[in-house]
């Protein structure tokens, strides 16, 4: 078991940001284990890992395919509950949360950026950003204004009315980043955010993501198998067969 090199912190130490920024969420993981039942035997994907990330921290999570990166992101993002161990994100103990509580946690705390962008193809760029606000119960006028503001912030003000199919890969990912910020997320989880992008678009997306901890005080976790992407992060967690090891 390897303890990640990150500033020791607790959830209660999260500090509120000013202006449009978010309160970065502290991440505290203790002896987290996770396994999947397969035909032959249980497959251990996370094996008693522990680490912590301070509010506003920026961490790269690396590892080979099947090392457990996506599972860890799923658990941190509340997509599935932890099986054993402790996971605290922004003061939330994820171990005891049920379905609706996890949904509320995802709405208020987490912003996802997926490799496949995860945009709803029936909606425009603006409506995709609005959807996150809709689910949070924000009124139409306010959410429309907020969506346009975020799209402007990622340089897509003129693409607000376009559907995802009419956008380039880089533009789609920037819409996804705008959506991830819609509810002033405290922890942004980016799963291979540059995996489907060319070099220029990837650089622009990474630049945008890296502004989050500094400009908006968001905690940022970027999952990547790209060494160059990982090396841009001040802190790197490397998973090997479900365990943290030195990168």
């Amino acid at each position, binding site marked *: 078991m390897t303890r990640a090199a990150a500033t020791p912190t607790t959830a209660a130490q999260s500090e509120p940001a000013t202006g449009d920024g978010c309160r970065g969420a502290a991440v505290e993981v203790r002896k987290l284990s996770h396994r999947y039942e397969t035909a032959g035997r249980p497959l251990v994907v996370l094996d008693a890992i522990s680490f912590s990330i301070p509010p506003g921290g920026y961490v790269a999570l690396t590892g080979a395919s099947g090392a457990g990166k*996506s599972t860890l*992101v*799923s658990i941190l*993002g*509340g*997509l*599935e509950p932890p099986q054993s161990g402790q996971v605290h994100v922004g003061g939330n103990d994820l171990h005891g949360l049920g*379905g*609706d509580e*996890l*949904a*509320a946690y*995802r*709405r*208020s705390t*987490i912003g*996802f950026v*997926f*490799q*496949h962008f*995860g*945009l*709803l*193809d*029936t*909606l425009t760029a603006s409506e995709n950003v609005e*959807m*996150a606000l*809709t*689910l*949070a*119960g924000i009124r139409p006028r306010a959410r429309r204004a907020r969506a346009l503001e975020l799209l402007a912030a990622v340089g897509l003000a003129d693409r607000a009315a376009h559907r995802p199919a009419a956008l380039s890969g880089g533009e789609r990912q920037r819409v996804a980043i705008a*959506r991830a910020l819609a*509810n002033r997320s405290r922890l942004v989880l980016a*799963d291979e955010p540059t995996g489907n992008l060319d070099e220029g678009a990837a650089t622009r997306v990474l630049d945008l993501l890296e502004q989050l901890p500094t400009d908006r005080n968001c905690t940022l976790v970027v999952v990547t198998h790209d060494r160059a992407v990982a090396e841009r992060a001040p802190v790197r967690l490397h998973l090997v067969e479900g365990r943290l090891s030195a990168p």
Partner: protein
Amino acid sequence: MTWTDAILFASRGLVRRRSRAVLTLMAVTLAAALLTALMMITETGRSRVLDQLSRGGPLAGIRVDEALGEDEVDRVRRLPDVAAVVPIATTRLLVAADGEVVAAAEAGTDADAPPMAVANAAAEVEGVVGVDLGQADNLPITVLAGRLPGIGSTTEVAVDQRWLERRGVAQGEEANIIGSEVVLGTLREGTGGRSDLFAVRWTRALVVGAVAQETATGAVLAPLPVVLEARAWAATSGETGAGEDLGPEAGDDYEALFVVARGLNQVDEARQQLEDLGLPSEAPENLIASVLRYLHVVELVLASIGVIALVIAALGIANALLAAVRERRREIGVLKAIGARDRDVRRVFLLEAFALGLGGGLAGTALGWAIARGVGAVVNDYLSAQGLVGVTVALPWAVMGGGILGSAVLALIAGTAPALRAARLPAHDAMEEG
């Protein structure tokens, strides 16, 4: 997610996948159209049959062939399952058409014979039925031509088919006798103290209509006062009933009653209540009930065909939505990843199903109405060619409401399983590639 937001999102989903949505919608539309058309045609057939049956009398009518006084009639009126009572008075009068009197006068050898004697020779004894024509709607009377006599008139009568047949008036030519006159002769026995003499009072009446009536046996239908006055005049000698049966026994005002029960289902109860009063009765409800039972079976069969079509359409909705759930696993996962609850996802899919059902129900009901009208037009052409009265195809509220709401509800039921499946999809499907 509010209902409004869910409706907008669901509608976007349907529009985006319009090919599948249109095909599913068409299946529901056709099924609803089939159901609506079949129900409309059945309802029209049922109305038509009941209409034909009711020509023989109101459906809930009961005949009581007993001579009754006013007190007994009042007792019948007070029976719980009786809606209306129409007393029937009959008498037998000498009746001759005006033309027949003229013909008799022309054929007579005695040119000096008085006119009334000539009328006497031309007239025949006929039954005259007197009823309160204000209640004609409750009686088994069908006007073939002209109209019914005025309610209180003593100078208007209608003639029955029996009269027409005896005088050779062909079917369809009943209108020819409207406006002619008849003479009515009331017999009174024992004039001047001699029992072998009769006095006759002659009156004239205008024939205002030709009718088919099963109220009582008689060739002439007259307002009640005509019969009651004739009987009163005949009875002044105090010796009625000799030779001809001129009326009921002393103390009885009417020869029969036509009793209308509160409904078809109350006919049996009303008859039992009459039986309890000692009044035997007869009613055509057994025939009607049998016909209704057969019609009900036809209705059930046709409705079943429509419902089966609707169920198949509902399965189509379920299939389309299940396919959509399979295709949209990652989209559902993404929705959940950005904060959607299970019930938000469920709501979106149920709304899609409801929209398909409601849209299909609306379009199908309209299409079914058009189909039924088309069938009605073809049937009317046929009936017209056969010289029969056509049918009116109507869309009852129950059929319209059932078609639309039934489709929507069935679609909701069909959409429940896919919606539940979608809602239960794990949120981490959002992480899946491809």
